[in-house]
């Protein structure tokens, strides 16, 4: 890992992402930050600069404007010169009940969590392929491991990301490009502020070092906190009949 990483970030103002980026700031990382809200992005950029990082540029736009993604990646490459790390961390949590009764929330969920991410990942992967090296870290979710009645719309979108990442890992196997799939469990963050928090919930501050290590070592799948690997193992092997009866 070069000490002064060049990092491109989509969803830079998300709580998890910001905590992760702070860890690189002390090493003098150089960032290009992309987000949906210019004011939030500016607040994050100022913070990272004060912590010792450099922000070579920022871009804010509606991620559903899919034509912008390629141009944004090109702009970032021109600004940073190269990407050592690309982090794709944007997303939104839909209301499952709404997704069951209306179409718009389902579309928004797929757009926010799958379609935009897939296009961004494709554009970034292409750039990393040209460079011949670099790490692409995608923040998906434990929700994608198995469809569950409490959040299958979100889970379906994240499962799509999983398939995409697995494919890319195959494509880049044997090369110096690494693709890391980060699967956070339930997090106390602005995205989940409306939900009731329980004992297995964690915080962005607590999981950021685990993500940092996974990116440094190029691990293919990283559950954070680690105990989610075990929880999801159990959930994946549960017979469908039993899973359906559980309130999850």
């Amino acid at each position, binding site marked *: 890992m070069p000490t002064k990483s060049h990092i491109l970030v989509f969803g830079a103002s998300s*709580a998890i992402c910001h905590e992760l980026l702070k860890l690189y700031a002390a090493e003098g990382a150089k960032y290009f930050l992309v987000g949906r809200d210019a004011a939030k992005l500016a607040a994050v950029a100022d913070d990272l600069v004060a*912590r010792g990082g450099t922000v070579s540029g920022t871009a804010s736009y509606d991620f559903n404007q899919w034509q912008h993604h390629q141009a944004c990646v090109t702009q970032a490459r021109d600004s940073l010169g190269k990407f050592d790390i690309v982090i794709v961390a944007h997303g939104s949590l839909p209301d499952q009940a709404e997704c069951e009764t209306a179409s718009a929330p389902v579309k928004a969920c797929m757009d926010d969590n799958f379609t935009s991410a897939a296009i961004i990942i494709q554009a970034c992967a292409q750039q990393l392929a040209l460079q011949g090296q670099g790490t692409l870290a995608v923040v998906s979710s434990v929700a994608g491991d198995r469809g569950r009645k409490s959040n299958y719309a979100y889970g379906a979108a994240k499962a799509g990301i999983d398939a995409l990442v697995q494919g890319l890992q195959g494509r880049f196997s044997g090369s110096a490009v690494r693709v890391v799939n980060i699967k956070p469990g339930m997090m106390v963050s602005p995205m989940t502020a409306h939900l009731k928090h329980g004992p297995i919930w964690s915080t962005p501050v607590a999981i950021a070092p685990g993500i940092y290590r996974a990116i440094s070592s190029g691990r293919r799948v990283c559950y954070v906190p680690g105990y989610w690997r075990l929880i999801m193992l159990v959930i994946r092997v549960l017979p469908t009949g039993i899973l359906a009866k559980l309130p999850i």
Partner: protein
Amino acid sequence: MEASWGCLPLTGPDRTIERDWRFEALPELMGNDTVLAYGRGRSYGDSCINSHGTQLSTRRLNRFIRFDAEHGILNCEAGLTLDEILQVIVPRGWFLPVVPGTRFVTLGGAIANDVHGKNHHHAGSFGCHVLSLNLLRSDGTRQICTPSENGQRFAATIGGLGLTGLITSATVRLIPITCDELVVEDLPFNCIEEFTALSRQSIDWEYTVSWVDTFSRKGQVGRGIFSRARHAQDKRALAPGRSRPALGVPFAPPVSFVNRWTVNCFNQAYFWAGSKKQGMRHTHYQPFFFPLDTIANWNRVYGKNGFYQYQCVVPPSGSEQAIQTLMRDIHRSGEASFLAVLKEFGDRQSPGMLTFPRPGLTLALDFPNRGEKTKRLLASFDEIVMSVGGAIYPAKDARMSAAMFASGYSGMQEFLPEVDPKFSSAFWRRVQ
């Protein structure tokens, strides 16, 4: 969840709302609802609690805005803890001008309580180093307050207990350091007179503080260890130290671990250890400034009923006598106090209207909560403090009367017009 540090059985807020961004508007308040900022809950009593009201958690307002590492000027959001700040500024050769006994307070809390540190006799209180602050009022207006711009509101907000609006960010002047260590000297003393003499001799030491044994046998009342320190001038490491405590108290035991026997044992051992390590030594800044931060949730040792902290200041004339009377009364009461801390404040005036530090001696003590008995004891201390024209520190208080507050804070009348009508706290409703 949103309790205060003393773990006292206080009524919490009806709701807590997280602030995510400094440019967000305040939440809508229904009817007579009031609001109060809540940082890390390090105030001991009810000054950080808005019982039955709304609390705004500021823990996510933890972003730096601008750090001028050339001139040592730091602008950041109010929810950053002093630890988070030190982690960033120490490696670049800067230090906070004033630090209290824990690094886990927020910047907003340090301003709202106008906290003081071991260098009060040199640097004054935290508010003396605040260059500007941004305030969000309940009418939606945002004000930049500095000593010259909105000066009255600035002075009201320094030590204003969060009642003048939500502090969203502030700018502070830092002090340069060349090393993360301090040169420390510990000196034992046997009575208050010896303490005062040491305090006078140590005037050119940046940091001074004393631990006093309020619980020793007759004739030893007022013995203690006087510590003085200054930043080491060597060009050595600039390591910020650990961010997380090494140890922790996992839960509150059903009964307090703090009683006359444990305190007596602790005090004997502490005095003995302190007397042994006389002479100068180098130490990292963390154990010197924040000894208790090594143990997460140390406040739980007082058991599920919690504890009261009592911190008073008595003016210089007759201060020795007042402190001696207090210590005799504590000794007589048999109520244990683990942490009796004694310090002489200097005369640097804070801009804050309701600031606590003022010239004289300050004494801080902990008492396990034994209900009315403890309250009566502390009320009797109030009488002694009031009779000599002293004051009680609101950040540590959960019980002082309106009369006691009024007697200690003459800036109250000037402060009242600056209070935001929608901001309140359990403490404020009690002392008004």
